[in-house]
C-alpha cells in the first residue's frame, strides 16, 4: 500500500466515523428537540389564548366606555336643553303687554305644562285681568341660569333649573313687586322636543 492510498483510507475511515457520530448525536438529541418543540408550541398556544382573553376583556371595557359616555353626553345635552327651555319660558312669562292680555295668557299657557299649566288655565280670567291692569309693557330677561344637581337622576323626567331674571314686573313669575331681580327655582319637563315649565318657585 502506497503512502497515498494509506492516507486516503484513513481519511475515508475518519469521515465514516464522523458521519456515524453525527447520526448518533442526532438520535441522542431527538427527544430533547421534540420536547423543546412541544414546549414552544404549548407556550405559543398559551400566549394566543391569553391574547384572546385580554382582547375580549379590553373590547368589553371599551364598549362599556362607549355606553357610559353616550349616556353622559345625553345627560349634558338634556341639561343644556332644559336650561334653554327654562330661559325661554321665563322670558316669555316676564314679557307682557297690558293691551294684549289674551295673547299673553296664550303664550304663557304654551310654555307651561302639568300642575302649573292647570293652575294658570283655571285662573285664566284673573291672570288676564292682572295683565290688563299692568301700568306699562313689562319686559324681562334671564341674566343667568344653571341646572341644579346636574348628576342627579331626574325625578319623573323633570329637571330643576335655578334662574335669576331681570324684570320690570317680577310678580309675573312669583317675585316681589317693586324689586327688579328675582331668583327662581324652575322645574322643567320635556314634552316632545320642547322643554316646558311645570313649576316656578321664588328662591329666598
Amino acid at each position, binding site marked *: 500500500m502506497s503512502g497515498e492510498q494509506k492516507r486516503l483510507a484513513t481519511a475515508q475511515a475518519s469521515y465514516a466515523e464522523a458521519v456515524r457520530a453525527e447520526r448518533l448525536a442526532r438520535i441522542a438529541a431527538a427527544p430533547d428537540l421534540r420536547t423543546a418543540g*412541544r*414546549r414552544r*408550541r*404549548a407556550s*405559543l*398556544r*398559551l*400566549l*394566543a*389564548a391569553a*391574547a*384572546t382573553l*385580554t*382582547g*375580549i*376583556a*379590553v*373590547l368589553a*371595557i*371599551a*364598549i362599556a*366606555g*362607549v355606553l*357610559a*359616555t353616550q349616556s*353622559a*353626553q345625553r*345627560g*349634558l345635552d338634556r*341639561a343644556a336643553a332644559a336650561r334653554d327651555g327654562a330661559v325661554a319660558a321665563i322670558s316669555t312669562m316676564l314679557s307682557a303687554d297690558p293691551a294684549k292680555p289674551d295673547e299673553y295668557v296664550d303664550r304663557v299657557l304654551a310654555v307651561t305644562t302639568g300642575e302649573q299649566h292647570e293652575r294658570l288655565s283655571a285662573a285664566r280670567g284673573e291672570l288676564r285681568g292682572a295683565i290688563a291692569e299692568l301700568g306699562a309693557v313689562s319686559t324681562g330677561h334671564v*341674566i*343667568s*341660569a*344653571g*341646572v*341644579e*344637581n*346636574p*348628576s342627579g337622576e331626574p325625578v319623573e323626567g323633570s329637571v330643576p*333649573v*335655578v*334662574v*335669576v331674571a331681570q324684570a320690570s314686573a317680577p310678580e309675573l313669575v312669583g317675585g316681589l313687586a317693586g324689586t327688579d*331681580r*328675582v*331668583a327662581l*327655582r324652575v322645574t322643567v319637563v320635556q314634552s316632545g322636543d320642547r322643554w316646558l315649565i311645570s313649576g316656578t318657585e321664588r*328662591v*329666598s
Partner: protein
Amino acid sequence: MNVAIVRRLEAPWQTRSTLGTVIAAVLLALGIAAFVVVGVWRAPIAERVETAEELSQRAGPIVAEVFSASSASWAADRARARSAMTPELASALAAGLANTPPAGVRSVRWEPVSVGVVDAARGAGTALVVADVVVTQTDGTQAADTKSVTADFVESGGRWLLSGVDELQ
C-alpha cells in the same frame, strides 16, 4: 395539570393553529385600539360631567366661605377667604379683603339655598349661587336678604378655587 390539556397544547402545529394565533393577535390589537380611541373620545365628556357634579357640590360652600365673616375672627375669616380663591382674584379684591369689619356688624353669614351649574368644562366652570345672607348686628338684631351671584371656579391641585364673582341680586 390536566394531561389532556397539555397534550392539546403540545399537539403538532397545523394551519388551524397559525390561523388561531393570527386571530388572537388581531383581536388583541383591535381591543387595545378600541380602548385607546374610546378613552380619548370620552375624556372631555367625562371631565365636563365631573366638573358639573363637583361644582354643584362645592360652589355653595366655597361662596359661603368667601363671603361669610364674623367680627370676632375677622382676620382669620379673611385669610380663609383668600385661600379659597385664586391669587389673581385675591389681589384684585385685596382692598376689600383688608377692610376692617363694618361698624356695628357682628357677623355676616351666607347660607346657600340653591346652586345651579351654568357652565362646566375641564378644570373650570361657572355656577349660579342663590343664598340667604344673614347680617347680625352687635346688638343681636338680624336681617336676612336673598343674594344671587354667578361664580367662576378653576381647579387647582385637586381643589376648586373661586376665580371670579358677579353679584346679580
